[in-house]
């Protein structure tokens, strides 16, 4: 085995597998010590292989090393006691918890435990990235645009919470399962959005977050086959398909209309489509169903002019019924405007206030400007676009707004 044959992300993926399996034995209250053991083993591996040849099965080598390291650390720890009772139902030996089938179940146990109802969603994400996905504190800080100290403190708080207010290291059943899987879905979706939506971040890390969210969703889907998970997967696939095309060479956002469709990943579009087929085999449609349907309509239309605005309006109306957010309402107004129903759009946008779109206030004014323009209220349109220009930060968006502004001014002259 040569160095370039080491499997992609082997260490990162092994990290979560090892941590979850050791947690099955030693209990969630010992998470910190467990993570130390895993981290330590990886560090030792890199030093060891400076002057040894790589084993044929690096994965097996790492697992053996981490088992030994964990036993060692727990032996040394002053709090040495019988750990096999701390882990909840049934004692399992080291070799049992490291069997392939058990590893998968343990990963899900860890994921559901991290999505502890007592933790904030943002904290759950940080926690999951560290303990489940094997990101370092520096990487998490970079990916979520947070201070390193901030990340450290969040992790300490989360671990303490699990010590003070322990929940069983297992996937809940019955009604509790339905409640918790909602939390897990939301955490995965937010993780995805962190990777997908920001343009200011390092593009490699951004792709890693997107890939990690898809990996977690896939793990969940394989095990539980929930329709809602399929809808979430479809949604993420449809969005992710556009990841390469939505940022220009200078790192600026490109609007959907101007994206180069040749740069979309049609394999992901197809995957999303397959997930969608499974997602709709139910009577209960969730926000993810409608959001996936919307994202799907955008990527499956052959070009921007082929987009079916009527369908989109219908999806948004349903979505707002179960998940009403200012941004969804603004989007509905955009759709109605696009399908030449600017009166309706004006009514829709009047239901929200610009301040509700924190950080995106300029969008409210830009959309309202276009609606007023279509309704031939040129002065109102001019006032709105001036407002938007005063608020916009992003350079490429500013450029687009300026062009619109010129159009409106010439509209005033010719009216």
């Amino acid at each position, binding site marked *: 085995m040569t*160095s370039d044959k080491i499997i992609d992300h*082997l*260490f*990162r993926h092994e990290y979560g597998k090892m941590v979850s399996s050791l947690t099955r034995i030693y209990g969630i209250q010992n998470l910190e010590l467990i993570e130390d053991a895993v981290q330590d083993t*990886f560090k030792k591996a890199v030093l060891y292989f*400076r002057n040894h040849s790589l084993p044929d099965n690096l994965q097996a080598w790492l697992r053996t090393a981490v088992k030994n390291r964990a036993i060692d650390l727990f032996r040394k720890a002053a709090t040495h006691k019988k750990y096999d009772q701390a882990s909840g139902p049934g004692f399992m030996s080291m070799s049992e918890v490291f069997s392939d089938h058990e590893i998968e179940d343990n990963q899900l146990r860890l994921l559901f435990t991290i999505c502890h109802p007592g933790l904030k969603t943002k904290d759950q994400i940080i926690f999951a990235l560290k303990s489940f996905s*094997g*990101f*370092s504190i520096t990487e998490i800080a970079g990916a979520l645009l947070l201070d390193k100290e901030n990340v450290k403190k969040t992790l300490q708080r989360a671990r303490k919470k699990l010590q003070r207010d322990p929940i069983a290291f297992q996937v809940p059943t019955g009604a509790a399962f339905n409640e918790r899987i909602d939390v897990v879905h939301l955490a995965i979706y937010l993780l995805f959005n962190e990777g997908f939506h920001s343009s200011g971040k390092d593009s490699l890390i951004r792709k890693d977050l997107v890939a990690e969210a898809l990996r977690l969703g896939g793990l969940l889907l394989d095990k539980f086959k929930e329709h809602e998970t399929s809808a979430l997967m479809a949604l993420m696939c449809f969005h992710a398909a556009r990841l390469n095309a939505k940022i220009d060479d200078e790192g600026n956002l490109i609007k959907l209309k101007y994206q180069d469709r040749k740069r979309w990943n049609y394999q992901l579009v197809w995957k999303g489509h397959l997930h969608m087929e499974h997602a709709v085999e139910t009577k209960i449609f969730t926000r993810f169903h409608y959001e996936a349907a919307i994202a799907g309509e955008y990527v499956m239309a052959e070009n921007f002019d082929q987009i079916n605005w009527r369908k989109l309006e219908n999806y948004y109306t349903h979505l707002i019924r179960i998940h009403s957010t200012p941004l969804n309402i603004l989007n509905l107004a955009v759709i109605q405007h696009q399908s030449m129903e600017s009166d309706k759009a004006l009514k829709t946008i009047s239901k929200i206030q610009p301040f509700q779109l924190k950080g995106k206030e300029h969008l409210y004014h830009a959309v309202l400007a276009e609606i007023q323009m279509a309704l031939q209220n040129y002065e109102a349109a001019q006032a709105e676009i001036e407002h938007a220009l005063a608020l916009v930060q992003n350079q490429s968006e500013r450029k687009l707004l300026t062009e619109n502004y010129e159009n409106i001014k010439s509209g005033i002259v010719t009216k």
Partner: protein
Amino acid sequence: MKEYMMVFLGPDYGEDGMGLSAEQIQQRMGKWFAWHEKMEKQGIVKGGEALHAHGKRISGPDRIVTDGPSAASKELIGGYYVITAESMEEAMKVAEDFPDYDLGSTVEVREVMKFEGM
């Protein structure tokens, strides 16, 4: 043929040093392995080991004991190799492949003193 020691200086990889992630550690491993393999093929490796962080220093007539450089210190010695080379220039050429320059780490190349005929 002369012998040279390459001493590696830079913070520890662990959480109290550079805080490398699993992903980064894997990358490092690949790079170190490739370098070692290259040197082995050339048949120039005489020996070498990696060192733990958190050592002790003993100094002066009173044998004062202090902690070694911290894991985060740029002066921390992380390991060494002894290689054979024709000249300092050639040894420095070998040291060009040291994998951790991008992390800000340093290699010190020193000729091993030989006492032939003593």
